[in-house]
Structures are given as C-alpha cells and as structure tokens.
C-alpha cells in the first residue's frame, strides 16, 4: 500500500464512541474578546463576564488546567484537547458557555447572550473544531422570550449546535406561560433545552428560600439541585410536555440523585392533589423517560458508592442519566473513576448512548489528529 493510500485509510478509520461529556465549559481568554461582538452601548461598557457569590475554598478550577500561554482554564483549545479529549478519553464534548453575569438591564442581557453565541460559533464551533468533536448550546436570554426565540431561529441549523441553554434561576419558573414561545421554537427545531446553574435576566442565584448560607459547601450542595427541581416541577405541572411531547430538558451540574426523591414526591403529591392539575395527560413519573435527562456531575459520593448504584436501579437511571465531567472546574468527574459500580449495559447507556440518542450524534467517529497524538 502506498503512503497516500495508507493515510487515506487512516482518515477513514472509525472509532467507536465511548464517552460523551455533557458538560464542558469553554471560557473567554479575556473579557475584551467579547467586545467586537457587542453592539453599543454595551461594547464600551464592562462586558460583565461571570460572577459568583460563593466560590470553592480551594479555587474553582482544576489547578493543572491553566494553559502555559496564559488565560484561564478552558480558554486554550490545545490544552483542552490534550486533557479532555486525549487523556480523559472524551469522544464528544457538549459545551455549555457560562459567560454572562446577572445583568439587570434586559437589553444588556440580550446583547450579551447574542454576543456569546457569535463568539462561540467563531471559535470553538468554528476554527477550533476541525475534528468536529465540540458540540454546543445556543445560550438564551430567557427572560426576554422574544429575543430567546430569535436566537434559536438564528442558530438552530448550525451543524454543531445540539441544544439550547438557559439559566436554572429565572424570573418565573420555566413552566410559566411567558416562556411557552421559547419551548415551541425549541420543539420546532427538535432541540433539547439544557438548564445550568448560572445567570440570566438579572437574576442572581445566590439567595435561598431560607436566607443566605455562610459557606460554599452547604450552598452549592443544596441550592444547585434545588433550582433544577423547582424548574422541573414547574415544567411538568404546566403541561408543556403534553403540548410538546418530544421536548426534552437536560438538568446540568446538579448531580443526579436528587431527581429520584423529587419525582417520587411530585408523583405522590399529584395523586392527592390532582384536581388542581386536570390538564395533565399523564402522571408525573411518566414524563421522566420521555422528557427529562440529567447530567451526572458532581456524582454523589456517600460513604458506600454502592448506595448510588442502588438508587440508580430504583429510578431507572439507565434511561435518563448522561455522563459529564464539568471540565475545567475543580470538581471535575473523571470518566474512568467517578461513577459508582455499574453493569456493562448501564455503563454504556450512561457514558454515551443516552447522549448519542438525545443529541443525534454518531456512534462512530473518524479518528483524528488527537487520536494520533
């Protein structure tokens, strides 16, 4: 075989997908990178990139993920490829851009989300993506629903866009009628909607129903899934999953185990209170497999990991759980080590098959320069 032929054959080599990572966070090298994408008057002002009230005491990022070229973790595609696609063995990375901060002005919020989508397409989904292994989210200014619809219409056809993205803390619960046009647009384009702890519409996710916690340890543990839970309950009870039967919401970075007690509780309460929800065609538990997905990180770590496996069995996690790392954050879950003991077919569904089915990804991908090292 000639060199040209063997190179050609190598290019056609297909690898079986083994890991789809449903939560990866690319970052801006610095805030100024976003400015060209912003219209006035927002361009001249502070682009207000990110903000957090509670931060991990050991720092929010993996310490080994800082590029030697400067810039924050996950700003340099080379290092991300090396660490995530290479060493961690991730085949496809579904990216979730957490760039915006809680800006009070709705026009500013709209401009920021639009700019992030433009920048993201121009970088991670564009020149950085020769291998096609980066997939992405349309980040939505959800509390300006018309603008959110416009962003969906603008980006839905992009070859590497696989979902829409909203903050988990919003002006109203996501089942509120004012958001319905956004879900209609997502459903029309067959896009799942991911919700992630973050910001949008001037809402800060820092204050809890029982007042301010003192420490990150307690705040993050309780409130991240607590926000997701309220949104899920609202969506189910609103009837949106009866109107759009194939609409799927993905709950990201709240861990997994919370969903079981939540859905049992909602289902049991519905049984006693169903006269309040006459429009629902199904009982709450029945919406889980068809309309809900949950990403795994940070997977819970009780003293006995088998407790998590046993919980998975009770709620049929095989059908709804999708693996994620949360790279480059400090509580990154390693694909080979993080999950509790699992049967092989469960592991296959959770590590890649559920995500492949949801996002329409191929089960085999061509080998590329990263595989060749």
């Amino acid at each position: 075989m000639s060199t040209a032929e063997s190179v050609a054959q190598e290019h056609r080599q297909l690898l079986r997908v083994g890991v789809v990572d449903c939560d990866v966070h690319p970052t801006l090298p610095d805030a100024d990178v976003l400015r060209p994408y912003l219209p006035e008057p927002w361009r001249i002002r502070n682009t207000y990139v990110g903000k957090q009230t509670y931060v991990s005491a050991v720092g929010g990022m993996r310490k080994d993920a800082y590029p030697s070229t400067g810039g924050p973790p996950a700003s340099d595609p080379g290092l991300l490829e090396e660490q995530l696609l290479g060493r961690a063995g991730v085949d496809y990375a579904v990216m979730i851009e957490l760039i915006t901060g809680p800006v009070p002005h709705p026009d500013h919020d709209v401009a920021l989300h639009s700019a992030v989508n433009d920048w993201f397409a121009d970088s991670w989904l564009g020149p950085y993506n020769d291998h096609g292994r980066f997939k992405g989210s349309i980040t939505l200014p959800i509390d300006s629903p018309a603008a959110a619809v416009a962003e969906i219409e603008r980006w839905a056809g992009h070859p590497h866009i696989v979902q829409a993205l909203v903050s988990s803390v919003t002006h109203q619960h996501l089942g509120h009628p004012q958001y319905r046009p956004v879900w209609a647009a997502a459903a029309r384009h067959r896009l799942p909607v991911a919700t992630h702890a973050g910001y949008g519409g001037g809402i800060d996710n820092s204050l809890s129903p029982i007042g301010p916690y003192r420490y990150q340890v307690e705040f993050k543990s309780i409130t991240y899934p607590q926000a997701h839970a309220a949104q899920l309950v609202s969506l189910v009870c609103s009837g949106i999953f009866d109107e759009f039967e194939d609409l799927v919401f993905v709950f990201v970075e709240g861990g997994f185990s919370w969903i079981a007690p939540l859905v049992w509780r909602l289902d049991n309460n519905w049984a006693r209170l169903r006269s309040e929800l006459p429009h629902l065609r199904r009982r709450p538990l029945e919406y889980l497999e068809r309309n809900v997905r949950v990403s795994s990180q940070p997977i819970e770590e009780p003293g006995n990991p088998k407790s998590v496996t046993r919980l998975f069995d009770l709620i049929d996690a095989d059908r709804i759980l999708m693996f994620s790392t949360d790279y480059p954050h400090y509580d990154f879950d390693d694909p080979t080590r993080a999950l509790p003991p699992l049967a092989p077919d469960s592991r296959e569904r959770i590590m890649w098959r559920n995500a492949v089915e949801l996002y329409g990804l191929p089960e085999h991908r061509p080998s590329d320069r990263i595989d060749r090292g």
Partner: protein
Amino acid sequence: MTTCIDVAVRPYVATVDEIRPYLPRAWQDVRLPVPWRTRYPLPVEKDAVGDPLSPATAARVLLEDGGAEYAVLIPPTMGLQPDPELGGAVAAAVNEWLALNWLEEPAAGGRFKGSIRIDPRSMDRSIAEIERWGNDPRFVQVAIPLRGHLPYGDVRYWPIWEAAGEYGLPVAIDADPGGAGVEYPPTMTGWPATFTEYVTMDAWNAAGHVASLVCQGAFERFPNLVVVVVTGAFDVAATLMWRVDKEWAQNRIEVPWVERRPTDYVADHVRYVLHVSDGPRDAAAFGELIDLTASSGLLMFGSRYPGWEYEPAIEARERLGDGIREPIMRTTAAKTYALESRVEAQA
C-alpha cells in the same frame, strides 16, 4: 392491638379569635393573619375524619382507632410576622391555648403531648417560652417554622439550641400554613404557580436547614441537639447530604469545624417524620430506599392529622417491611421523646 406513637398531629383553630384571649392585652386588638392564610389555597378538601377542630374527635381517631400510645401535637403558627415580638407573643398564646384546650382533653387521658411554639427571631421570648414549659411533662419538644430569614445552623439561633438542650428537648421544624408575607420565596426561582408545586418544593427547605446545622458547626457545639424534620422528605435530605459529604471532603478547609463526615452527624442528630409522599409506592422499593439511604433509624411515624397529608397508622404500617416497622411506628419516637412505652413497660 398493634400500637404506635404518632409524632405529627396538627391541631388548628378555626379563627384567630380563639387565640386572641391568650395574647397580652396590648396586642389583643391587632390584626392577625387569618389562620391558614396563604397564597396557595388548598385545592382539595382537607382529608380529615370528623370535626378537625375537636380534641375529642382527634383522641378517638388517633388514640383509640389509630392505636397511638401518644400523639405529639404541633400547634399552628400564624406564619412569619413582620414583628418578631408579635410573632413571639402569638407563639406564647398558642402554647397556652394548646395546653388548656388539647393537652387536658379528657378523652386523651394524658396521651396528647405538646410542642412549645417559639418565633426564633425573637430570642428573649423564645428562651422565656422554653423556660416556661421546659419542665412541664406535657411538652416534649420545641417547634420552629420551616421558613425563616436564616438557615437554622446560623450562630444567631444557637441560644435556642442551648436552651432546648438544657431541658433535653428536641427541636421540630414544621411548615407554616403560609405567612404574613415577609418570608422569602419558597423556591430558588420565586413563587411557583400551583399548590402542588409549592408543597413539593417547600419540603426541600428542611434539607437546607439540616445542611447548615452540620456545616456551621451547630451539631459540634451542641452534641445533644436533636432536630425533628416534620415536613419529612428524608430521601430528599439524604441524597442532598451525599452531596455535602463530597463537597466537604473537597473544601474541608472552609469548614474545619465539621470534624466528621456530614452524614454521620445526621445519623446522630436528625430525625425525619415519615411522609405519605416519601419515596416510591412499591413497598419493596420503599424498603430498599430506606436501607440504601441508611434511614431506618431516622424515621418516625406521624399521621399529620387532620390535613391533606393525613396518613392513618394502618396505611403507614402497610408500607413498611418487618424489620423496620417497629422502630418507625414506635420505638424511635419513644426514644427520641423519652416516652415510656406501655407495651414495653408491660413486657
């Protein structure tokens, strides 16, 4: 007959005028919120048997028919008042009302036990109430509202745990029937649209208090403190505390006063009242859930008579497997509240 201890009975008043006479004269004419005033009117008839306002009926339903050796009564608050002093005064009035109208009910034969209502935001009045009733054998715990303005692990509440501890009293956290409007929204993202959503999510807030009691060092500082979560949702709390275990191992430097694994504190310090909406319906799956969350020693039966959450003892018993039925229906409560069980005494 098989007996039990019912740790969650919620007597209530039809109108606030029943409480008014027990208030200090200076407050007797103030406008108090109507009991059970809430943004979320109950969409169903309260699931109750007989006259829910009648202590005699409750005694028949719970003690006679239900087989409860004791019933722990948790009287209502009027919700969080803007003025914590008024809140404290209302709590004191409710305690007097309870003592006179329920705890002395002849048909109960002394088997109705009470909870000392306090408004934790009014520290002096709270301590005074605990000191007033703490040695009265008719009262077996202190009761605080589910929603306040700070998580209950906060140091500003510690004098209450100290006082409760001095009298050997557990502290029960129970939901209000809505408030006067100064509480925070019940979820992370505001006010949900329906009662169903509201009650489903409100139960989560107790888990936040539990996490704060661990993470802010309250269980270290008060090794005898026992907290009873009347709103239930032991499974919500258990899975969230798994998260706290992980975060603590990673960010231990932030909270070095958490000297033990967080879930180990829960085993020693927290008890959950079994709730009709807890867990999967299938009894085997429910038993598996209790086991995998290590909750069999943490649960206590409570009927929540006479509200929409009412679950009679006979139905609760059916959900529980052989190994866990006795502790959950009786013995854990007997131990928690230091109640001498007649069954054991006769044995």
